[in-house]
Every structure is written in C-alpha cells, then in structure tokens.
C-alpha cells in the first residue's frame, strides 16, 4: 500500500510540475514581455532595455523558469507589478476569505449531494429520481451568477434577511457573520450540488447493478445491510473522486461568487491581476489554485486506496 501511495504522490508532484510549466509558458512566451506591460505606451527603447536588464528578462526563458520555480518552492512568490508589493503579502490576508467560503460550501454541499444522490439511486426510475434528474439537469446549465443574483434579489434586496456584501469584520459576532456569508455560501453550494449529486447517483447505480449486489439481494439480505455493508464500501472511492472532481467547478464558482458579493478573496485578486495584466500575481494565484486542486485530487485517490483494498494491487 505504501508503495502505491508513494507512486501516486510522485505522480501528483509531476502533474504540479507540468502545471507550473503550462502557467509559466502561457504567461512568458509572448510577443511582448513584462517590461513592455509595465512601461505601457510611454516606453522608449532605452527604458525598455534598462528595465529588462534590471528584471533579468534578458536571460533565456528556461533559466527564468527555474529561477521562478525555485522562488515558488521557497515561498518567494515574486513582486506585484501593479502594487510593487510582495505577492505573498497580498495573498496572505485574502486566502482566509476564499478558504472559508469554499470550506463552508463544501461542508453543506458534499453531505447534501451525496445523500440526495444515494436517495435518487435507491429509487432509480421512480418519481423522486425523475424529478431530481430533471431539476439537476436544468440546474447544471444555469450560470452561477444567475443563481447568485436571484438569491441576492430575493433575500438581500426584497426580504432583507441577509447581507448582499460578504465583507466580514473581525469584530462580527456569529449572527452577523451568518448574515454576511449565507448568500455566497448558498450560491456556491448550488453551483456544485447538481453535478455532485448526479455523479454520486450514477456511480452508486453502477454498483447496484453489479452481479455481487444481485447475489446479496437474492440471499435475502435486508435492504439496509445491502446498502451499508455491501454497496457503500465500493461506492466510497467513486464518491471521493466525484467530490475531488467537483472542486474544479468550485473554482469557477468561487470566482463568480466573490465578484457578485464583493468578497475580498484570492480569486478576486486573480481577476484583478488578469485585468491589470499583473503577470507575477497571476502566476502565483494560478499556482496556488493548481496546487490545491492537484493536492485534493491526490488526497481523494489516497483515501480511495485506503478505503478499498482492491485498489491496493495494481492490475
């Protein structure tokens, strides 16, 4: 088991390395360069050359890549072009806002969607299943900002139950925090709920229709034991994968939610960076999101291997 997990870890590291190459080459191999972006329209050839010299842009791309990667590993995320501050400082106080939003949304949507998916799978073909299937099919195609704006219109503008801005203050008590965070968390949960529920349903149905389940049912085992002892252990690893996969949807959801509700978070920083074409900031944010995403996928795999003995022996 240890060997498989360490192989998987190495694979994750390799993926991260590939991601860093993609990010670096997408932002650096360009007709213009960072120096041109800084100086903008008012550039002269001398100023351009001087700045390139100062920033070390004259070195070959491969040297700069390893320099950048080395900095990343040591926690040096570079300096923002727009604010001239270290990127690490800018990210530090915003990370918590995004993390809190994502964790709360995951805490709500993961159990809810797994429960609904299981319910739907157990009643496959029935009325509950069909209703849920139709609802989620529609919900998947609805843009996140539509859900966010509807919730905002109804609960913040008309009913005034919750706050429309998710800007929390350190001195806020629980109810104030709840008022501020309810709508963004709800929007984000909606954005991933439908996908996760449908994927859970299909992976559980896959197991329900396998021969060993039929055998167990024919033995006359009660339905509860059938689900808990026979189906669930095998369903666990696809469900874990489903959860990890949906974190990808969570990323795009977080970006939209932070924009709608004015959350001063990491994705907002990334979008601002993209608007201002602040390359070091974009690179750092993208690497953080990429690393978190790859790490969570890795975690799901390792947990699956631990949950399901069959995965411990490679085919």
């Amino acid at each position, binding site marked *: 088991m240890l060997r498989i997990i360490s192989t998987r870890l190495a694979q994750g590291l390799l993926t991260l390395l590939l*991601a860093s190459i993609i990010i670096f080459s*997408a932002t650096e191999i360009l007709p213009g360069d960072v120096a041109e972006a800084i100086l903008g329209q008012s550039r002269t050839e001398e100023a351009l050359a001087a700045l390139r010299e100062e920033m070390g842009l004259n070195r070959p791309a491969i040297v700069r890549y390893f320099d950048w990667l080395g900095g990343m590993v040591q926690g040096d995320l570079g300096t923002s072009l727009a604010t001239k501050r270290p990127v690490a400082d800018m990210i530090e106080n915003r990370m918590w806002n995004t993390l809190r939003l994502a964790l709360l949304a995951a805490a709500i949507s993961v159990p809810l969607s797994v429960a609904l998916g299981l319910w739907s799978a157990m009643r496959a073909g029935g009325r509950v299943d069909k209703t849920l299937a139709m609802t989620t099919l*529609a919900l998947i195609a609805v843009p996140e900002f539509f859900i966010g*704006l509807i919730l905002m219109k109804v609960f913040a503008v008309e009913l005034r139950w919750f706050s429309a801005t998710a800007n929390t203050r350190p001195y806020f008590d629980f109810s104030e925090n709840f008022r501020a965070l309810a709508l963004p968390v709800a929007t984000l949960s909606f954005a991933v709920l439908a996908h996760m529920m449908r994927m859970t349903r299909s*992976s559980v149905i896959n197991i329900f229709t396998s021969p060993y389940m039929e055998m167990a049912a024919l033995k006359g085992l009660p339905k509860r034991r059938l689900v808990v002892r026979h189906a669930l252990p095998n369903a666990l690893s696809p469900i874990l994968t489903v959860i990890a996969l949906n974190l990808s949807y969570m*990323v795009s959801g977080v970006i939209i939610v932070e924009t*709608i509700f004015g959350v001063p978070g990491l994705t907002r920083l990334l979008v601002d960076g993209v608007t201002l*074409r*602040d390359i070091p900031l974009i690179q750092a944010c993208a690497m953080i*999101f990429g690393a978190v995403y790859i790490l969570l996928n890795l975690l799901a795999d390792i947990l699956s291997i631990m949950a399901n003995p069959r995965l411990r022996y490679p085919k």
Partner: protein
Amino acid sequence: MSETSDTVVPRASVFAGLRLTWTAMIAGSILLFWLVLALFGPWIAPHGEAEIISGQTFAPLGEGGLLGTDKLGRDVLSRLIYGVRTTLLLALVTTVVSFAFGVTLGFAAAILKGWFDIVVSRIVEAFMAFPSTLLALVIIGAFGTSITVLVLTVGLVLSTSVFRVSRALGYDIGVMDFVEAARARGEGTWWILTREILPNCMAPLIAEFGLRFTFSILFLSGLSFLGLGIQEPAADWGLMVQENVGGLFLGSSAALIPAACIASLTVSMNLLVDWFQQRQQGETVLEKIDQ
C-alpha cells in the same frame, strides 16, 4: 456503412419519427425563438444597440422601453435582441474552434497511434489536471482581452474534452470489421476516415457539440460577467449582467433579465441534448459527462 435515407419518409411521420417529448418540444421552441431573434434582430429591435433613449437610468419595466433602461439609459429590450446575436455567434465559433482542434487531433491520435498518440494524450492530460477556468484566466491575463484571444482560449480549453471523446470513438470504430474490410480492400486512410469512421461517430459527436456549445455559452458569459470577455459598447448578455448589477439595489431588473435569458438558452440546449442522446442510445447526457 451505406446510406440509409434512400426510402421516402412521408412528411407526417418525420415528427413522429423524432419521438419528441414535451421537454424537448419546449426546449426546441425556446432555442428556435432565440435563433430567429438572432437572425432578424436588427429589424425587430426598436432602438439601436448602444443608443441612449432616455435620461432616466435603470427605468423600471414599461417605462422608457418595454423592459426598462439600463445604467446608461439604453433600451434593455434592444440590447437584449442585439445581444443574442453576439452570444450565440461567439459560442458557435468557439465550439467550432474546439472541434477543429479536438476532432482533428483525436482522430489523428486514434489512427496514427504510437508516439503521436502518447505525446498528445499526455499533453491533454496535463491540461486537464488543472481547472479550466483558471487556465483561461491565465491565458487571457497574458494576452489581454480581444475577441480572437477569447475565442481561441475558450476553444482550446474546451477542446481537451472533444479530443478525449473523438479519440475514444476513433479507437472503438477503427477496430470494427467494416473498417478492417475497407482496409483489406486497399482503401486509403482519408477514405476510411471520412467514409467509414466519421459517419459512425456522428451521433455522439453531435451530442458532444451540443454540450460544448452550452458550456461555451456559460464560459463566455462568465468571462464577460467578470469584465474579461466582450467589451462595451457591444451588447452581450454576460456583459449586460455585469453592467447592470448595481441596479439590483435600485429595484431594477436590468441585470436579471439577461441572466435569465442565458439560463433559458443553456437549460434548453442541455435538455435538447439529453433528449437527443436518450433517443440515440437510451443514455442521458449527464451519465455521459459523468463517466
């Protein structure tokens, strides 16, 4: 495979043959409605695309225009009608780009096999190991926002899944007996590809096209909503939402209407693709995505 359309089908049974369900009919009518508006928009719209018709900004429904005015006093209805053109056309071009990349490389990998397949598949996997929104943001951040960059970026991001689908299809069908027979007859690669493999891939590829089309509408409108997509004064539904969010607190629905229109478009498209797939193979669209 030979042609199957040599029998004459009476007109009445064309619709019966489609086995339209209620949801498919409603979804189809909504799409048709938007398509007609996109084609004849400029003749239907009461005002110009960026024409300011009223001094009153965020006018409520019925005042100024039928659907009110936006943050600059422009007619929401007119911008909506012009916007459907931008939204649909851009999504269509993007999807075509993703198919041009994805299908070409996918079939090439399935037919050439060997190192070409390995290299391309690994690159695609590396791209997929990374949230697609993030990838698009990085590229747009580097190249700036223009329609060309937008179409190519989103097209590239979407093409990874098209590649996987077409590669799998190419592999599956490439080993079937009728392809073997064609090879044994001495047909060339191009002939086998266009006459044997492609016709047998049409149904899943059409479904994939529908899904990618929905996805590119969502993706592009999301980017426009962030201010990174279509730029003013052009009318685009995602952009209209972004422009008018502030009006939400003034009781204006100028942001909600385009958002609802995008939802109507994407939900209808998704339901239609689902119907198409169920008709084809009794499998729902999401079970397809979920795999």
